[in-house]
């Protein structure tokens, strides 16, 4: 059964704070699927999440062109991928992403490209604009794996 929860953030800074609160909850084998249109704040969210886990600060470039950026973090290996440019699922296997789902924390932008390859235990975050407030973002969280409920409750209910 799929569980849902929607969170609202009124500025890029609030979204960033949520990312840094979610980060310490993650461990190898966890996957975040970041859905939503261009400009919704997916990379902004991912950048802050990754930076909060780095032991040595470094740039977190957009993975739009390189497809994947990998990092060594305090919580183990982390893959930040942008699948927008992919067109076939065999390209996902070529990237080594399937193996990384088991061995790393994976943050995936444009996860619709995964199709049936999307991990069943993933946490989906659907980023949406607000029609009236330009800096506000609604993030709809959804998951099938029971492990997410406690972790999200721990950071969202403060």
């Amino acid at each position, binding site marked *: 059964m799929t569980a849902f929860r929607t969170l609202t953030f009124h500025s*890029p*800074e609030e979204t*960033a704070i949520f990312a840094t609160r979610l980060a310490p909850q993650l461990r190898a084998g966890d996957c975040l699927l970041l859905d939503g*249109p*261009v*400009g919704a*704040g997916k*990379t*902004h969210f991912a*950048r*802050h999440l990754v*930076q909060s886990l780095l032991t*040595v*600060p*470094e*740039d*977190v*470039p*957009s993975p*739009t*062109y*390189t*497809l*994947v*950026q*990998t990092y060594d973090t305090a919580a183990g290996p982390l893959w930040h991928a942008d699948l*927008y*440019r*992919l*067109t076939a699922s065999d*390209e996902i296997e*070529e*990237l080594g992403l399937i193996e990384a789902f088991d061995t790393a924390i994976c943050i995936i932008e444009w996860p619709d490209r995964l199709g049936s390859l999307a991990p069943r235990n993933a946490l989906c975050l659907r980023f949406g*604009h607000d029609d009236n407030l*330009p800096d506000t973002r609604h993030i709809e969280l959804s998951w099938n794996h029971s492990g997410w409920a406690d972790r999200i409750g721990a950071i969202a209910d403060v």
Partner: protein
Amino acid sequence: MVRTVTVLGLESSCDDTAAAVVRQGRDGAQILSSIVHSQDDLHSAYGGVVPELAARAHAEKLDICVIQALHDAGLTLADLDAVAVTAGPGLIGGVVAGVMCAKGICAATGLPLIAVNHLAGHALTPRLTDNVDFPYLVLLVSGGHCQFLIAHGTESFTRLGGTIDDAPGEAFDKVARLLGLAQPGGPAVEAEARKGDAAHFALPRPLLDRAGCDLSFSGLKTAVLRQRDIIALDKGGLTRQDRADLCAGFQQAVTDVLAEKSRRALALYLTQDPAAPVMAVAGGVAANGTIRAALEAVCAQSKVAFVAPPLALCTDNAAMIAYTGIERFRLGARDGMDLAARPRWPLDQSSPAMLGSGKKGAKA
């Protein structure tokens, strides 16, 4: 007397696969051949370049590029002094393919192997094309990168500032995507902008209010999106003129930000009292006429020479890798068979990393 050095360069760190032969003697450097296998004719349908993500695909093309580059140069492997290869930063599968190919050639021939930072290749291109002396200021501005560097030497760069989020080339591509224009977005947005009024829609100038040379382009892209949606809601759609005006406004915003930050970077650079001051621009975004003209004007105001290499040497190519290889070769640099590909490899490892929202991290 300066010894003549001939180097084969390999580049496969993103979508393009490239090989080139560059020779440098007493009369300067000469590109004997430069082969680029690009994906340019394939991409339009996908809203981006079709990624050549498989290491295997790069590997197959590298062989062909090397053979063609040697053929065009009229040389054989025996005529070379070294093999230079991009060892990062970039798409890891591609970089690994290039490094493996270079190692194979070196193992078979006994030629020295020289690792090159892809960004150093771009940053040193003004020396290949225009014999520019150190220290010079370089603005590296492309799809994946945007930074101001002072080039002090072949391996010595100071980063004055850079983007804290996306690079301008990515913003051009994504704005094109938002407005239903073809990819690559740079030329498409520029063509539309010629028909538009840059003052019609008010768009932000990110980070201009903040001191320093850091830049931000992600919010500008989102501002274009927002403006598009406001127009669409108002009129039920976008007219061609609206689209042209949005493109013109966006391009002008990018131009204003790059020009103002260049002014600041120049001021910092000029405190070093260079004998013959030069600002160079490198990277694909240098092809944009409006941006280029604005940077030229800023340099003219500061009485600094402006250098922009020809477009074929601004976008990804292997001639810049071969040339950087020559400079490293002359400095005695040699890399071993244990050379590893590096997905990220900052040119200036002492300046702090760029964090989003304009914050800076502790000195590493």
